């Protein structure tokens, strides 16, 4: 078995009788010969690749795959998860569905694919919630694939890795002052971090999202780049304010990139817990690996080419770190490097087995301890503030915190930024989790995007019919409401609710003036809003209308006079079953009660 796909160095001598791959021979036959190198003279293809950079020249296929993967990630994030291409239908008279339809029409690849591919996302949430999470299927698939290409995810697919490569190309390699070399116990930091994350998950607290590769990237994008997209494309007034949580996350994101100043791919090599997971998978069931043959002339070019610090002093492989990117293969002037099955031992220069810096038991103990402390510390942190209103169709709060990987995908896909990241107000436990900020905007009736892009099922991916009746909270009219307080007429919330199709707020005439007989005088009093609890889903459109007009625009109120609250009895937080079924059962009960009342009187017209 040979997995070689690198572009051989022109210096490499060809062993007699070895056939070129079929594809190459066809290319030779049909493409202009100027593209191909002759003897020691570089062809156009190679020249072009060389112009792009040595890594392109050595392993172009890998760079192409990386580029495609990164482009796909970009498209999914900035195009598929950009809700504003939706326009309400001109023709339909029923319940609108333009935001949901728009996402479906653009989702030719699932928007959350990369998040689901990050195996740490599936594994950690599954352990924390003690439930099967569908992302585990993907984790299994990618780990299986990586038996063939160990840590291939990191070298080929991971968009964070590609971004770090870009950073190194644009900035990292130009600033030499922070460059470091040498190895120490810290090279295994990623394993300790992974251990801490898994121990914390076992303790029921999910911290994977803080450090797992893809969530770090999506969150960085969601907090640092998505506002730029929103501001440039639609106006800066649409960009919600930043909070401390945002800034911390952005700082972390740039911190991850800045590690690249120390050495290329520093994060991937030594810190990334997702990478550690692949390395472990690598350890247990890898099929293929990099081998060095006796023709090696100890020139050291491969060490220079390796972006992952995966080549030892003797030019053999640190197999757990090697991503099979094959850049070294292309750089080798004697064709001494091959990528073959693990058991292949022909012409080997040396055995690969020993590990120079051992994993330390103390390191693992410290990590485990850290994980336990985190799980107790974060878990025990009670929240004093108001219970946050979660996205529609969120699972029960405990499970929600165990499942929410803090990737920020829901913020990106949410039209009008109804969902915003919590800062530290709900404790560390709730950091970066989504909450409904109804003062900013209300949840659009035609949208169920947040559930559709959630990679872990913290927000359930159910059809619009379900979302339409799923209660995320309950609106309550506050005493300072203009008509309720007898100040002036206002029906912003009622109109808003009716326009959205919920009809969950109705009027009640308050403060009527009475004549001498105690009869109300027509035209007196104020029609104040009353929320019909069994119709309100807590979308917050009412609150948003009141806040924007009465508080922000007219400054007649210090705060919105209708507010959505979450909490027991006010929201449906279920992990299984449907919301339509809940409503059907409630209806049934009401009808039974009504029938009893009617039976006593018979026909009364």
């Amino acid at each position, binding site marked *: 078995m040979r997995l070689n796909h690198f572009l051989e160095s022109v210096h490499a001598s060809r062993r007699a009788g070895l056939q070129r791959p079929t594809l190459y021979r066809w290319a030779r036959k049909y493409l202009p010969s100027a593209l191909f190198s002759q003897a020691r003279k570089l062809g156009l293809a190679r020249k072009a690749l060389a112009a792009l950079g040595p890594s392109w020249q050595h392993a172009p296929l890998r760079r192409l795959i990386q580029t495609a993967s990164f482009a796909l990630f970009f498209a999914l994030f900035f195009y598929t998860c950009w809700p504003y291409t939706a326009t309400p239908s001109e023709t339909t008279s029923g319940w609108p569905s333009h935001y949901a339809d728009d996402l479906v029409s653009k989702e030719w690849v699932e928007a959350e694919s990369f998040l689901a591919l990050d195996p740490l996302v599936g594994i950690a949430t599954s352990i924390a919630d003690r439930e099967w999470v569908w992302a585990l299927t993907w984790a299994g698939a990618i780990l299986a694939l990586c038996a063939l290409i160990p840590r291939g995810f990191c070298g080929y697919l991971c968009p964070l890795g590609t971004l770090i490569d870009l950073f190194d190309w644009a900035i990292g390699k130009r600033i030499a002052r922070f460059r470091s070399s040498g190895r120490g116990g810290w090279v295994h930091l990623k394993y300790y971090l992974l251990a801490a994350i898994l121990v914390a998950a076992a303790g029921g607290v999910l911290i994977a999202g803080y450090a797992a590769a893809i969530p770090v990237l999506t969150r960085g994008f969601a907090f640092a780049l998505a506002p730029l997209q929103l501001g440039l494309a639609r106006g800066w007034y649409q960009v919600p304010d930043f909070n401390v949580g945002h800034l911390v996350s952005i700082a972390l994101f740039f911190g991850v990139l800045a590690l690249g100043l120390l050495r290329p791919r520093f994060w991937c090599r030594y810190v990334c817990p997702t990478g550690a997971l692949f390395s472990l998978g690598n350890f247990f069931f890898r099929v293929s690996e990099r081998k060095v043959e006796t023709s090696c002339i100890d020139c050291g070019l491969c060490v220079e080419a390796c972006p992952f610090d995966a080549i030892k002093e003797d030019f053999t492989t640190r197999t757990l770190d090697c991503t099979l990117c094959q850049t070294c293969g292309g750089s080798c002037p004697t064709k001494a490097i091959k990528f073959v099955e693990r058991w292949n031992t022909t012409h080997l220069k040396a055995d690969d087995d020993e590990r120079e810096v051992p994993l330390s038991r103390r390191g693992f103990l410290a990590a485990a301890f850290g994980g336990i402390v985190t799980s107790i510390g974060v878990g025990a942190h009670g929240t004093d503030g108001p219970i946050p209103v979660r996205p529609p169709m969120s699972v029960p709060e405990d499970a929600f915190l165990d499942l929410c990987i803090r990737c920020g995908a829901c913020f990106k896909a949410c039209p009008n930024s109804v969902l915003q990241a919590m800062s530290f107000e709900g404790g560390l436990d709730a950091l970066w989790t989504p909450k409904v900020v109804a003062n900013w905007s209300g949840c659009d009736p035609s949208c169920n995007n947040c559930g559709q892009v959630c990679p872990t099922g913290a927000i359930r991916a159910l059809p619009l019919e379900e979302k339409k009746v799923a209660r995320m909270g309950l609106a309550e009219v506050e005493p300072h409401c203009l008509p309720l307080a007898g100040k002036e007429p206002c029906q912003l919330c009622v109109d808003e609710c009716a326009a959205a199709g919920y009809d969950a707020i109705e009027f009640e005439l308050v403060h009527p003036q009475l004549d001498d007989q105690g009869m109300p005088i027509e035209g007196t009093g104020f029609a104040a809003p009353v929320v019909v609890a069994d119709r309100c889903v807590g979308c917050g459109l009412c609150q948003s209308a009141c806040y924007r007009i009465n508080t922000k*625009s007219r400054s007649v109120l210090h705060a919105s006079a209708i507010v959505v609250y979450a909490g027991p009895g006010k929201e449906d937080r279920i992990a299984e079953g449907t919301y339509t079924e809940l409503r059907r059962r409630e209806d049934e009960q009401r009808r039974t009660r*009504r029938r009893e009342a009617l039976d006593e009187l018979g026909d009364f017209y």
Partner: protein
Amino acid sequence: MSAFAPRFCTRLSTGARVRALVSVALVALSLNPLSAQSDGQRVVRTRQEVLELIERAGASKPDWWDSVPLEYPETLDLSFPHPPPSKEWDPRLNVGQFMWSIINENENRFRQGTKFMHFVLKRNEGDRQVVKRCSEQLAHCYHDLLQDWARAAYWKRKLGAKDVALANCYWQLGNKEMAVGILEWIKVDYSRYGGAIKLWADMGELERALALAAASTGVRDWGAAHRAAGDAYRKFARYEEAVDHYQKVLAVKSKSDNNLILAHNQVHARVAIESIQLYETFDLSKVQPGTYEGSAPAYNGDLHVRATVAQGRIADVQVIRHTEKQFYSSLSDMPVKVIRAQDFRNVDATTGATVTADAIKSAVARALAQGRP
């Protein structure tokens, strides 16, 4: 519940009153000034036919009956005592207050409230006083809320009342003589909103409406007669006289600081004046060429437009400032539609974006109003 007149005189619920105040709904209000008069295919019935119709309707259930559930707060005192035992206004305890505060205010509860009143009536069959109160409520429900004229007349006649509401029922059912027969007895309209005057105008009798208005002017400090006279003129597209009368409503001085009925009539007059100026008398050919700006409250704050008139045409409409978050399409669609129609009055709003679209129309109306001599 004495006064039927106010509800009868405009079908503006509290909701619409407020919308008028906010003035976003200028368009909605004004586009239909002649609606009550759209009597192209008015049915005409003989006295005999009308009376038969009333009896038949009174004896049968309305067609919606079975589809509307009987719903009411369980805390209500169904014996409907009068006056209510406690001084406190409590629509969840007192049946009359429940009807007033909750049923009257919510269109989607009109049928439910009507059914509920039948229910209370049946429960209290033995008590003549309660039966009378329930009958009054039913007449009100069928007339003011459901506009089921036959049933409203049935309950009115059962109560032996001969008032403007019954006259209106007769008129609506197709017999003008019967209506006139009642109205002729009204020499002065003492009602709060000029119901009798309005009915004369509705029936096409502008002269009699104005005569009654003249006779009723100044009987109270409500401005009701002028308001009704203004409405009557407006109905007959005599806008100058209408505005005159509306101005008189605005000029009424009240003896009390808390004259809510006058305030209500004045809001009506103010909205009507603006609506006449901006919409009903709008004539593009009278707008001076030039560029005008106007604004109107939209979904998320004020929206500003700039409209250009050149060579008697609306040459350009642009939304120049807004803070809308949703439905960008209407921001670009509406100006195009206005230019294409060369008018802002009968332009269909973009689906799902009516607030923004209406704001654009209002803002254009206000902008172009500046271009009139």
